[in-house]
C-alpha cells in the first residue's frame, strides 16, 4: 500500500525535552503541524520553539503541568489538534488519560486505553502470558499480603506460597515501574516486612498497594522486543534490544540487536512477544520485556504500552522510523510494506546500534542526580552518530524532571565497529557545568567485559568501581593540566590538613577551594549567591 497525504493535520505532543523534540521532528518530516505544551520551567525550551504552536500548562511541578490531563486535552481541542502523542513517562501509560483523549474524539498515539489498563496491571499481564504459554518469571498470579490482623493461617499460606516460588525472591508492585515497591527477599524471615514495605511504597507511588512474588532470576540479561501493531490486529516484531546495563532498575546502555543470540533464540523470542501482543489486542507501538537466564531461556517480565526511551537503536538497525509509523498507525493505517519487510529481516539484523543515556548524575556517587546549569555542550557528530537531545548551553534541568540530557546513539556494520564508534563519539562529547554519566559510558566503551558480551543486570555492580581511587582521580587532573601546558609541575602530595577527615556525608569545613568554588558558581545568577540553604 502506498501512503499518500499525511496521517494528521495537527498533533499535540504531551511531553517535554528530547522526546517531545523527537516527536515534533517526526511531525515535520510528515508535514504534520505540531503543538507543544510547556510548564513555567520550559518557557522558550527547544521543544517549544521547534513546534508550530505551543500551549502553557502551569507551574514546573509535573502534577501542575505535564500530568494535568484535563488541561492537555483542552489544549488539544483549542488548538485544533487531531491527535495526542504522549511520548514516554508522564501520562503515557495512564489508561484514564488515554480514555479521556479517546472520549474527546481525538486520536491517541499509542495502544488503546483498555489495552493499557489491562497490560499495565502486571499481574493481569502475567496471567495472560501464562494462559497462552508464554513463560513467565515463576511467582504468584494474584496479589499477596499479610494484613496486620492476619491470623496464623494466612501467614502460613503466604509463607508456603513464597517457599513454592523459591528464595531469593522479589516482591513487586502490580502497578509498578521504575523499581518502586520492589524488594528483594533472601529468606522467610524477611518476607513479612518486605511485603509491608513494598506495599506501602507502591501505594504511595501508584495509589495501588498490590504486590506479588516473583523468583529472582540472576544473573540475567534484560532483553526486550519492539512491537508495532495496526488497528486491524496485525502485530509484528521489529527486533530486540539488550538493555542489561542498568542502575536502580533504570537503563543506562541499550543496544540492538542483542548480541550473542542464535537465530533460533531470536526467532522464538520474537514469536513469544508477538503471541503475547496479539492476545492482548495491542496496537500502535509497545515493548515486551523479558529476562534471559544463564541457560538461554526467556522469561516474560512486562509490557510497556508506549514508545520506549531506547526506540532509536531499533530505528537505526531496522531502518524504520518508529514515531512516524506510530502516527500512521494511530490514523488507522495498516502496517506498511516497509515495516512488514523490516519485521521479516528482524531475525537476521544487519548492523549494530548502541545507545548511551547521558544523564545529569554522578557515577562516582551511585548515580545520584546532580544539580547545576549546563555550560559547555558539544555533541558528537559524523558518520553513524545520532544524538537526540533538547539541551542547550545554559539550560537547567529542574529536579522534578528526568535527568536525561542526551541520548547518544551509534550505528555501524557490526558490534565491534559500533563499540569503536561509541568510544569515538564519546570522546567528541563535551559537557560542562554539571557532572554527567559520561565517565561511566567511556568506561563501558573500553570495557573488555562489554566487548565480550558479558552482560547482566549486575554489570554496574560487577564491573564499575567508580573512579579507580581518589588519588588516581586527582592525579588524572594534575597530569591533564600538565599536559595542557597549564602547569609546569604537579605535586600530588595531599595538602596539609586543617581538620580531621570527613566522614559519611559530612563535608569538611576545611576551606577546600573546590568546595568554595561550588558556592560562588554562576556569579551572574543572583539566586546562586546565597550564604545559607535556600528556603522553600
Amino acid at each position, binding site marked *: 500500500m502506498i501512503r499518500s497525504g499525511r496521517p494528521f493535520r495537527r498533533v499535540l505532543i504531551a511531553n517535554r525535552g528530547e522526546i517531545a523534540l523527537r516527536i515534533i521532528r517526526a511531525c515535520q518530516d510528515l508535514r504534520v503541524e505540531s503543538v507543544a505544551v510547556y510548564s513555567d520551567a520550559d518557557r522558550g525550551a527547544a521543544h517549544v520553539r521547534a513546534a508550530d504552536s505551543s500551549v502553557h500548562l502551569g507551574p514546573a511541578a509535573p502534577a501542575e503541568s505535564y500530568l494535568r490531563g484535563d488541561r492537555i486535552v483542552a489544549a488539544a481541542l483549542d488548538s485544533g489538534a487531531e491527535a495526542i502523542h504522549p511520548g514516554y513517562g508522564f501520562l503515557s501509560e495512564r489508561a484514564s488519560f488515554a480514555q479521556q483523549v479517546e472520549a474527546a474524539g481525538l486520536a491517541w498515539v499509542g495502544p488503546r486505553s483498555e489495552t493499557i489498563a489491562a497490560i499495565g496491571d502486571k499481574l493481569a499481564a502475567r496471567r495472560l502470558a501464562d494462559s497462552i504459554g508464554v513463560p513467565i518469571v515463576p511467582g504468584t498470579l494474584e496479589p499477596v499480603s499479610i494484613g496486620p490482623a492476619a491470623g496464623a493461617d494466612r501467614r502460613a499460606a503466604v509463607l508456603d506460597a513464597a517457599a513454592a516460588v523459591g528464595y531469593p525472591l522479589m516482591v513487586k508492585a502490580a502497578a509498578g515501574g521504575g523499581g518502586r515497591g520492589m524488594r528483594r527477599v533472601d529468606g522467610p524471615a524477611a518476607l513479612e516486612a518486605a511485603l509491608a514495605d513494598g506495599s506501602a511504597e507502591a501505594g504511595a507511588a501508584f495509589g495501588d498497594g498490590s504486590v506479588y512474588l516473583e523468583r529472582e532470576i540472576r544473573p540475567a540479561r534484560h532483553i526486550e522486543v519492539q512491537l508495532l501493531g495496526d488497528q486491524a490486529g496485525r502485530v509484528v516484531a521489529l527486533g530486540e534490544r539488550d538493555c542489561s546495563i542498568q542502575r536502580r532498575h533504570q537503563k543506562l546502555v541499550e543496544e540492538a540487536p542483542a548480541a550473542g543470540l542464535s537465530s533460533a533464540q531470536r526467532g522464538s523470542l520474537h514469536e513469544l512477544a508477538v503471541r503475547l501482543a496479539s492476545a492482548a489486542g495491542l496496537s500502535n507501538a509497545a515493548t515486551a520485556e523479558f529476562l534471559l537466564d544463564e541457560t538461554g531461556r526467556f522469561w516474560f517480565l512486562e509490557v510497556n504500552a508506549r514508545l520506549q526511551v531506547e526506540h532509536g537503536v531499533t530505528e537505526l538497525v531496522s531502518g524504520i522510523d518508529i514515531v512516524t509509523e506510530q502516527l500512521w498507525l494511530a490514523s488507522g493505517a495498516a502496517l506498511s510494506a516497509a515495516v512488514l519487510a523490516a519485521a521479516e529481516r528482524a531475525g537476521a539484523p544487519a548492523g549494530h546500534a548502541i545507545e548511551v543515556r547521558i544523564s545529569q548524575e554522578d557515577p562516582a*556517587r551511585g548515580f*545520584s*542526580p*546532580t*544539580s547545576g546549569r549546563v555550560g559547555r555542550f558539544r555533541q558528537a557528530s559524523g558518520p553513524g552518530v545520532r544524538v537526540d537531545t533538547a539541551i542547550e548551553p545554559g539550560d537547567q534541568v529542574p*529536579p522534578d524532571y528526568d535527568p536525561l540530557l542526551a541520548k547518544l546513539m551509534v550505528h555501524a556494520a557490526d558490534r565491534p565497529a559500533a563499540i569503536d564508534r561509541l*568510544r569515538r563519539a564519546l570522546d567528541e562529547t563535551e559537557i*560542562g*557545568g*554539571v*557532572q*554527567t554519566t*559520561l565517565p561511566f559510558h*567511556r568506561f563501558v566503551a*573500553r570495557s573488555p567485559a562489554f566487548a565480550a558480551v558479558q552482560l547482566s543486570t549486575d554489570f554496574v555492580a560487577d564491573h564499575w568501581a*567508580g*573512579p579507580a581511587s*581518589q*588519588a588516581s582521580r*586527582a592525579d588524572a*587532573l*594534575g*597530569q*591533564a*593540566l600538565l*599536559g*595542557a*601546558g*597549564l*602547569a609546569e*609541575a*604537579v*605535586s600530588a*602530595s*595531599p*595538602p*596539609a*590538613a*586543617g581538620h*580531621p*577527615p570527613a*566522614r*559519611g*556525608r559530612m*563535608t*569538611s*569545613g576545611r576551606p*577546600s*577551594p*573546590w568546595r*568554595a*568554588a*561550588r*558556592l*560562588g*558558581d554562576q*556569579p551572574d545568577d543572583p539566586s546562586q549567591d546565597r550564604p*545559607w*540553604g*535556600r528556603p522553600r
Partner: protein
Amino acid sequence: MTRPRAIEAGLAGPGRQADDPTVNVDATTAGSIECLDLEHAILGQAPDGEGSGQTRTRLAIGPARRMMDGTVVREVVVDGWRFEVQLDDARRISLRRRASRAASTVGHVRRLEVRSDLPGRIVRVAVAPGDTIVAGQELLVIEAMKMHNEVRATGPGRVVQVGVAPGDTVELGDLLVLLD
C-alpha cells in the same frame, strides 16, 4: 603566555573515605594567571603514555570566573569527570599556608562549615545553636532520591548557627550548620 609555576593536586583531606569522592582535588596554581586565555578553550588531549588510540584523556577547561574573595575558578572536565579548580597567585598561597600553620601551632579552632553534599530536602534537624556535639553525632538528615542521608559531625564542637529547617530544599554546597 606565562605559565603558572606549579599546581598542587592531591586529596582534599587525608583519610577521606574511598566511597566518598565528592571532593578530591585541591589544586592551587602559583604564578600569574592573568595571561591565561582559555575562555572556552579546548586544550585537546593530555599525554597518557602509549597511544593505543583507545585511551586518550579528554580535557576541557572552562572560562575563568572571579569569586568574591578575588580568587579565580575554572571548571576542568577530565574524561567526563568534572572538577572546579581554584587558581591562586603565589602570594596568596604563601599567606594561606602561613595562616594554616599559625592555626595549628597556636591551637586556634577555626569555624567549621557543614555544607550539603547533595541536593535534596531537609527531613530533620537534630541540633540547635548552643548545642555541644561529639564526633559522629547526627546533625541533620537530607532526603534525596527518596533516601535519608544522615549528616554527622566529624569532630566535637559547638553549634553556632543552623541555616536550614525541615522542609527546606538545599542544593549541593549549601551551608547547613556552622560549628565552632
